[in-house]
């Protein structure tokens, strides 16, 4: 800290014109100035206060930051170059105790609280730490030249998924880290394919780049922890030639708190939390794990969801058992479910009016996952939109009954599915000819409610053939801490 920015002996008052209390005590500042040894640090207007000889322009807030000012006016007494006392706001007794009769403020009320310091306004403190303090970040610095565009610099360094990223500056990273109580140097896990340790700080950097708000950090961390569950097989999902990528479904109060979309266009664009949380996971895998398309990511075609694929479940109906609860999380807790999802297959049925009709119809659509003649080769998520769900609800069907009915409807005789049946080469081994075959694993169809009020639609999101080895690879659900 340079010595010259504070007086050796005397008084400092930190003030701003925008503060009524500071304006109130302007005559007191003038009175103290006449006594000598007064310096005023003015946070917003160097012409304020009038009639004071030594007013220092502190619009850059360096002095306010270094003095750790939380409210103005703050009166500080210095002696031998060190602060010895301070008082905050206007209180005649305190000011006269510190500065004597010149600070009595005759005619003023005895007491009036101060205002917040500009240096602690939202977002400002982190910027000041980045500018004047020690941000405490461990990640190496990358300098961008004066005439270069930092967004282009991020592209050139290979940090982007193809869309512009928010440049990860210290102040943005510090704001992001303020969204979690976890320490920046805590290792969240090893990110495939390179099994690189990923700290909370690296998560924050990539969350900044993805466009997340700090309040999303607990969800982003929860998503990452779930993705690193060995049962999710993130490495395999990354390497596959198949279409799939991580599909993120959020349940519980966290989803509502950060304004996630579970309604109109829930699987589409337009909601910041939906868009950026899914993207943050993909950027972490890319940047920390080194999972690059065309390198370890060998997808033949991929799918647009590999930019981001994240939404919240509609939990507005108390009769509906949320996905997270179905999968073992205590009701009322926030949770993330990760599924190996390919693209969205829209399912239209505008004629079914009974649950039985709709189940048979949905089963026809679900048989198409992967290939109509393949079974137990990948699971699925079925997103029930409100109008389809209403058909079940009006007949008193709950989640479990829908699941059971679909499970039964998704059995087919092997003779229709074996290789060559129906003159289609693809299919099950000939040994299955006399068996009834399930399309999915017993718990392999995940029902979720989401979508806008209008539309007799549902969405089928096919899974990954890797899920066929049930003990090794499944969707995972984790509580968000």
């Amino acid at each position, binding site marked *: 800290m340079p010595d010259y920015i504070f007086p050796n002996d005397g008084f400092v008052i930190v003030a701003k014109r925008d503060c009524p209390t500071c304006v109130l005590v302007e005559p007191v500042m003038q009175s103290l100035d006449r006594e000598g040894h007064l310096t005023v640090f003015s946070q917003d207007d160097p012409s304020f206060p009038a009639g004071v000889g030594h007013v220092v322009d502190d619009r850059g807030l360096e002095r306010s930051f270094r003095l750790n000012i939380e409210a103005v006016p703050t009166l500080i007494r210095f002696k031998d170059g060190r602060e010895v006392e301070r008082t905050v706001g206007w209180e005649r007794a305190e000011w006269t105790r510190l500065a004597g009769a010149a600070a009595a403020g005759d005619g003023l009320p005895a007491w009036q609280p101060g205002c917040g310091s500009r240096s602690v306004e939202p977002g400002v403190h982190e910027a000041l730490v980045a500018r004047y303090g020690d941000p405490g*970040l461990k*990640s*190496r*610095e*990358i*300098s*961008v*030249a*004066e*005439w*270069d565009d*930092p967004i282009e*610099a*991020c592209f*050139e*360094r290979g*940090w982007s998924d193809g869309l512009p990223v928010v*440049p*990860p*500056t*210290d102040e943005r*990273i510090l704001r992001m880290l303020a969204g979690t109580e976890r320490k920046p140097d805590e290792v969240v896990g090893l*990110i495939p394919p*390179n099994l*690189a*340790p*990923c700290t909370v700080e*690296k998560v924050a*950097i*990539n969350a900044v*780049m993805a466009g997340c708000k700090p309040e999303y950090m607990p969800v982003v961390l929860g998503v990452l922890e779930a993705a690193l569950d060995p049962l999710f097989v993130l490495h395999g999902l990354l390497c596959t030639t198949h279409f799939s990528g991580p599909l993120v479904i959020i349940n519980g109060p966290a989803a509502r708190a950060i304004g996630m979309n579970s309604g109109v266009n829930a699987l589409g664009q337009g909601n910041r939390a939906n868009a950026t949380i899914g993207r943050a996971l993909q*950027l972490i895998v890319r*940047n*920390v*794990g*080194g999972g690059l398309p065309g390198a370890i990511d060998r997808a033949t075609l991929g799918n647009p969801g590999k930019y981001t694929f994240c939404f919240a479940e509609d939990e507005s109906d108390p009769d509906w058992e949320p996905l997270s609860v179905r999968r073992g999380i205590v009701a009322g807790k926030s949770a993330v479910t990760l599924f190996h999802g390919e693209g969205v297959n829209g399912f239209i049925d505008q004629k079914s009016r009974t649950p039985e009709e709709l189940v048979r119809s949905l089963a026809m659509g679900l048989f198409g996952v992967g290939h109509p003649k393949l079974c137990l080769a990948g699971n699925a998520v079925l997103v029930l939109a409100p109008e389809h769900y209403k058909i079940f609800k009006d007949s008193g069907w709950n989640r479990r009954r829908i699941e059971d009915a679909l499970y039964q409807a998704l059995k087919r005789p092997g003779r229709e599915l074996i290789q060559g049946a129906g003159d289609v080469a693809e299919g099950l081994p000939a040994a299955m000819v006399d068996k009834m075959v399930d399309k999915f694993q017993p718990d392999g169809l995940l029902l979720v409610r989401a979508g806008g009020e209008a539309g007799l639609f549902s969405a089928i999101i096919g899974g990954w053939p890797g899920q066929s080895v049930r003990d090794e690879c499944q969707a995972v659900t984790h509580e968000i801490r």
Partner: protein
Amino acid sequence: MNVAIKLRDPTAETSPMRRARLAPLQSLSNQTVALMDIGKSRGAEFIDRLESHFKAAGVATKRYRKPTNTKVAPVDLLQKIAHEAQAAVIALSD
């Protein structure tokens, strides 16, 4: 370099801080070399000499010319060179 902004590395920091350049060609065999005249006077004479040396060595070349030496090459010219050649010589005769 006048630093305008500092970013933090989002990666695992397993690669050097400086960006890696494209690896140089191991051989000019079966490659095409772009010869770009930046547009200063008598540049063509120099390029002619280079072209004859490449020809003698059995290396295919293609000629390009910037519209003016005072501005950077137009994007369509750079894209054309990147599409048609694997190496480039950007030359002037000063």
